[in-house]
């Protein structure tokens, strides 16, 4: 399930933050909206009926003076779930005071969430899972045999290839910050012969365009791709689906439009996507 949360800003700025969620529910993305809609008027910052507050994860786990309302891993024994599923006529039924009961799918969500031990956030768990996979499998082949040649090649092209760490299988970082404009589509093409060693491509503010995506999508060990403030557009954006290890993608300030964003949305491996787009200048004046 892909989650979109929109940040409303005083300006007409389309700021979209995508983050990939695993299959189970999490407090932050699934449970807190349900609680906010149904429970906060009586169990929030203003009122705490029965000494219960539900407006943060720690409050929900804290429960009341009588004890916790969530028994991790067991919905049936959890007071929260029990009260939601009583007969609406029961004194203990929630929401009380004749307020509309929760929808069936909302109750199901809470049940699954408690059954999965009521996690707060899944984004982090997801990253953590990926990390353990990455430890088992090295990030890239040993860079030692080729590093001299690769960095000399990069230097001749006006960019740098530097080791991410002293661990030879941690891969190389393509670094362009000294003069981003020197890094063009042609440079990306020429570096492709070392692509299996490259795990991070720092291409922010470079001269690369969508043409490079066709090459970059074959850099199979890429974990981080920063394309922010480049002229990359919707073209070839779906080819990034070939990057199975890609975890972090920054497309802020690019020419990517709605169609491209929808395609980015479908990239399943990417845990973190940034797509902060400035509104056109004309829009801001209104």
């Amino acid at each position: 399930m892909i989650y979109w949360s929109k940040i409303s800003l005083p300006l007409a700025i389309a700021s979209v933050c995508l983050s990939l969620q695993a299959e189970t529910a999490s407090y932050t993305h699934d449970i807190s909206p349900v609680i906010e809609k149904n429970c906060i008027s009586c169990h929030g910052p203003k009122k705490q009926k029965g000494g219960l507050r539900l407006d943060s994860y720690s409050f929900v786990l804290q429960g009341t003076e009588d004890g916790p309302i969530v028994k991790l891993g067991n919905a049936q024994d959890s007071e929260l779930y029990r009260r939601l599923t009583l007969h609406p006529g029961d004194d203990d039924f929630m929401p009380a005071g004749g307020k509309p009961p929760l929808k069936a799918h909302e109750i199901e969500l809470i049940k699954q969430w408690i059954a999965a031990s009521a996690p707060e956030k899944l984004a982090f768990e997801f990253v953590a899972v990926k990390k353990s996979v990455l430890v088992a499998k090295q990030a890239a082949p040993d860079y030692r045999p080729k590093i001299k040649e690769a960095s000399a090649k990069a230097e001749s092209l006006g960019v740098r290839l530097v080791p991410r760490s002293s661990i030879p299988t941690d891969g190389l970082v393509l670094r362009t910050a000294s003069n981003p404009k020197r890094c063009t589509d042609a440079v990306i093409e020429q570096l492709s012969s070392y692509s299996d060693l490259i795990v991070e491509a720092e291409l922010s503010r470079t001269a690369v365009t969508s043409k490079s995506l066709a090459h970059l999508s074959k850099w199979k060990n890429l974990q981080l791709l920063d394309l922010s403030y480049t002229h990359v557009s919707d073209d070839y954006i779906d080819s990034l689906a070939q990057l199975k290890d890609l975890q972090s993608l920054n497309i802020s300030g690019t020419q990517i439009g709605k169609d491209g964003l929808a395609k980015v949305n479908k990239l399943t491996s990417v845990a973190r996507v940034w797509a902060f787009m400035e509104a056109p200048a004309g829009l801001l004046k209104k």
Partner: protein
Amino acid sequence: MNHTLNDPNVALCSDHCGEHPNVANLPELPLSLQKEWLELETRRHFLGRGTKALAWAGLASIIGRTAPHLLADPTALLPQTPHFAPKAKRAIYLFMAGAPSQLETFDYKPNLADQFNKDLPESVRGGQVLTGMSSGQAHFPVAPSFAKFSRQGKSGMWMSEMFPELSKVTDDLCIIKSLYTEAINHEPAILTMTTGNMFPGRPSVGAWLAYGLGAMNEELPTFVVMTSKMPQKQNVQALSNRLWSSGFLSPEYSAVQLRSGGEPVLYLKDPKGVTSDIRRTVISGVNDLNRQLYEKIGDPEINTRIAQYEMAFRMQTSVPELTDMSDEPASTWELYGPDAKEPGTFAYNCLMARRLAERGVRFSQIFLRSWDMHGGLPGSMRVLCGNSDRATYALMTDLKRRGMLDDTLVIWGGEFGRTVYSQGTLKPDNYGRDHHPRCFSMWMAGGGVKPGMSYGQTDDFSYNIVKDPVHVRDLHATILKLFGFDHTKLTFKFQGLEQRLTGVLPARVINDILV
């Protein structure tokens, strides 16, 4: 000194006279002895450099000389590489010089309201020696915070009304409430925070990172410092370049200061009538002379000098591009507010720090002074927080929007805490607080730090730490860890010791606050 340019025996540094007696200044000495001296001097300089030899090998290869025994070592191919993959690629350190009170900012003590004007229990103070500024007081009346607190964000952390804007990003902060230091006065305390030691002469955190990591952007300095215009001209501590010096590391790792008024970097503009070509010719000439001297003496400091000339030349192009903010969209100014248009304000410096981070500068340190509130604390606190709150929030938000907060570490804090008792007369709306090294609060965000959590706990008086103490050394060890370094292994041999930022006393990485 009378140097004769024609005399080949005279070792002439092109831009200044030798600082110490040189064998070549003594023409009576037999030539063979002079030669031996020079060889020994080269050897002494080389061996004395210890781990610096790696960088030296890099420089040697740049100028066409090689040190074969070094290049045979495979690690010699990898100068300035972290021990393991870093979480943070750069850091922005908002240094609140003068020591903001923890009681009005991040260490909420609701129970103190009942303690107003009661004497601080002797058992809490535990016989601690106080500063001369308040030790003569007959009473130590408890001063509750005038500032109110409320739970903010999904994390529900208690935030002060002094930071209404920052409160909006509560869930991104990792608040540490249990920092402590040994220093009780500003200069040693600020030095401890910036260099890990209260005596001057040690490299600053930024210098260690520059030394360990090298530059991401070779056109700009790796470590940049900015001081901010003071919102009020009281409670001010002096700042000096001791705080951002490279100490015993090579001078190229010390910070370049971006000035708050006039030219951002002094002497960067060519004088009238001097074109860029002429400047290039002069620098090439000076560097050629320096290279000749290097051939003779082999002192690595000469290469540092060459590198500095080249950096200054590159900065003639890169700094004007950096400081020209006309390319910023309207949304930037909406976010940071009108103060950001005025060079030298804290808001301007925060925006500049984002521009530096974007261009790959490793470590930007912004100093904001006037936090030393011995008296009239509530009024000054309103001024200082009012001056910095929006810009701090803006910087955090800007980094988040651009996807940079993941690998940019933001650090906020001063050099020690302040006393729970009032220094001078206590009124509910007016009081002062003296220096307090036993506990203080800081926050970090991004760069691999866990968001939306607080760490450590103080007693009911915010006087002693009761849970998870964090020494300045622990903080430094943690920062180095985020940048991919084992703090015990990022060393530099000096005065017979493998020197390190965290020194010889035990330091621990606070793993609980790492993602």
